[in-house]
């Protein structure tokens, strides 16, 4: 009697989501439209089935979306039978809460935080559920499942509560809140394998498609209404897909022929750069795959 690693991870995440529903008065699930938040919302549906997910989803909309993201979002919410709240960075700009960045590399990534914190305060949420994973980058490796934030929404990495066994301490003072990360222990590979196993429908952006792109700082960026190449940046049509989905102005695409989950999994297995290092990975070679096969892995 032993669960597969995916079933064990699923069970752990469901446990965490149920703890959230039990321990907090007003939780909210942050939904970005990317695969990780799609996964978390899928797990939330499982955790409370046949009841509806007992908390809303919230999309912090940068306004710089690929149009596929929004149409996918609306379909997915209908499928989940969940409640969606949208708060937009544009509103924060209009209200003078934040100022738009200037210059060719302007992005709204940083501005999102203000919109988020304002929304948490406005709607009195005491727990925001996110799809971050510990394998994403060094700084996250120490993050807890239940991450305490003080009344200024700040995280103090030097003073986190120890987390032992499966006992999650969500006690807090008035005005404080928590960020909870149910898929902390999943790796990028686990996420893809599970999505395949569960047959979860994903936005088309993850699969190969032809798109007008140009290179900037070693990244392949898509031409959109929000982002146009500068004079020397040559626009070409290429077969690309996205490994992460975020603000259209700063999410790099990768050249790839992958048009199924199986293809993506082979690509992730052979990939030699992290998801976050969306630098053009020319270095990815047949040799890399060969090396791994020789070593007996992948």
């Amino acid at each position, binding site marked *: 009697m032993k669960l*597969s690693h995916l079933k064990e991870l699923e069970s752990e995440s469901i446990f965490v989501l149920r703890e959230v529903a039990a321990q907090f008065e007003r939780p909210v699930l942050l939904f970005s439209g990317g695969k990780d938040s799609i996964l978390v919302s899928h797990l939330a549906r499982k955790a409370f089935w046949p009841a509806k997910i007992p908390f809303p989803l919230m999309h912090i909309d940068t306004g710089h979306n690929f149009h596929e993201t929004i149409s996918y979002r609306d379909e997915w919410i209908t499928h989940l039978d969940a409640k969606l709240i949208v708060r937009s960075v544009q509103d924060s700009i209009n209200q003078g809460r934040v100022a738009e960045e200037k210059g060719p590399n302007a992005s709204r990534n940083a501005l999102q935080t203000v919109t988020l914190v304002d929304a948490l305060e406005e709607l009195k949420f005491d727990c925001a559920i996110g799809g971050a994973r510990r394998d994403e980058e060094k700084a996250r490796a*120490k993050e807890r499942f239940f991450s305490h934030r003080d009344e200024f929404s700040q995280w103090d990495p030097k003073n986190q509560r*120890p987390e032992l066994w499966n006992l999650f301490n969500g006690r807090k003072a008035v005005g404080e809140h928590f960020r909870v990360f149910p898929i902390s222990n999943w790796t990028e590979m686990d996420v893809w394998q599970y999505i*395949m196993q569960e047959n979860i429908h994903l936005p088309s952006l993850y699969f190969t498609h032809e798109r007008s792109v140009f290179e900037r700082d070693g990244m392949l960026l898509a031409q959109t209404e929000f982002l146009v190449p500068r004079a020397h940046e040559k626009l070409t049509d290429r077969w690309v897909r996205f490994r992460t989905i975020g603000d259209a102005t700063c999410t790099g695409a990768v050249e790839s022929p992958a048009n199924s989950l199986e293809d993506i999994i082979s690509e992730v297995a052979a990939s030699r*750069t992290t998801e976050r290092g969306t630098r053009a990975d020319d270095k990815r070679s047949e040799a890399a795959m060969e*090396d791994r096969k020789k070593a*007996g892995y992948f």
Partner: protein
Amino acid sequence: MGASRLGLRAAGASFIPHPSSLILFLIVMHETEFSTAGYLDMELLRFTTAGSVDDGKSTLIGRLLYDSKSIFEDQYDAIVATSEKRGEDHVNLALLTDGLRAEREQGITIDVAYRYFATPRRKFIVADTPGHIQYTRNMVTGASTANAAIILIDARHGVIEQTRRHAYIASLLRIPHVLVCVNKMDLVEWSEARFNEIRTQFIEMSAQIDSNLDIHFLPISALLGDNVVDESQNMKWFGGPALLHLLETLPIENDLNRSEARFSVQYVVRPMRADFHDYRGYAGRVSGGVFRPGDTVKILPSGQTSTIESIETMDGPLDYAFAPMSVTIRLKDDVDISRGDMIVTGDCPPLVTQDLEIMVCWLADRPLQAGGKYAIKHTTRDGRCVVKSVDYKVDINTLEKVEGDTTVGLNDIARLTLRTTAPFCADHYRRNRETGSLILIDEATNVTVGAGMIL
């Protein structure tokens, strides 16, 4: 029970491993070709690492990550650059887990970080706790969910005081498998005699600790890679296998309790929809034994009985459920159940009690207040308790009981008697790590201050 676990120097204490467990697994498994289907079916193994500063823990984890091809090129390029900048001869694999090291050097509170790697057989979660004089709190945290502990020993120094502490914590936290890695064998001429000497030292030392640990010894060089992923060419006298192979094949199926059925209700599911009108399900995770539809169950602490109607998940009903599955249980009778109640079967129910005897590891700077009141969290049940007495402390270096000293500070381990405001369903920690563990919370700051194991 607690009285016998300490200060026992008598021969014959049960920590001495059975000879058969010293014979390392020699089963040669066929290399499975990577296939998507096979890969979906891996098992999960969680382990923690313990060692003193500079025993080579970061190097070992770096090597496991690197040699198992879990390091991406951009991460590797970054450490190559740093190694060059520092003028080091080799690429310093320890830099892969650099974050914590930097903290240590800056004298910041050291913490547990989690690392991930996978082979076609298993996915591994490593609780990485860097060596430090005062790091009991971190090792306890990392150990609480671990199936296995790697204890590192520097071949030049042999078993030292800290090794004893690490072995004690592994046993206190009931980590089922202990892998003692004698590291830096390259610095002792790959000597078999030295390895055997350290193994004997460890076995003698651990005879003081009452435990049923499954224990394995390996001679390695984390720096050069000997016996980490590949079997050593320098130590042919060691029959193998290498550490990674051992991690891939440790039998972990029975690490969880399979005999006493336990299910703590986490959340009551009530859809309130026309198509599920009278539906009432108890959501939670199995923490021991097996549940099946038709089983007669007892609900604690009330003691009511009922029968399992069905075990449900969104993917369909189940014929049985075992730990650590998250499921929803429906009962035949309309009993009054809420979060924190425990559903059990069989003739060995947990003790329903307001008096708890525990071993505690203190996690906070502010010492425990004897007579103080704390919030307590056990399974999905919350309550309050008062510390009635500090029965003794454990000198973690000599493993002797210290009586009469009731100051329990950061990193101290002590035996406490608690009185709770409401009954808890207590199992012995040695029977079930999930229903036998609890945390104490400071009611003023809401911080987790104590990790408790029920005796």
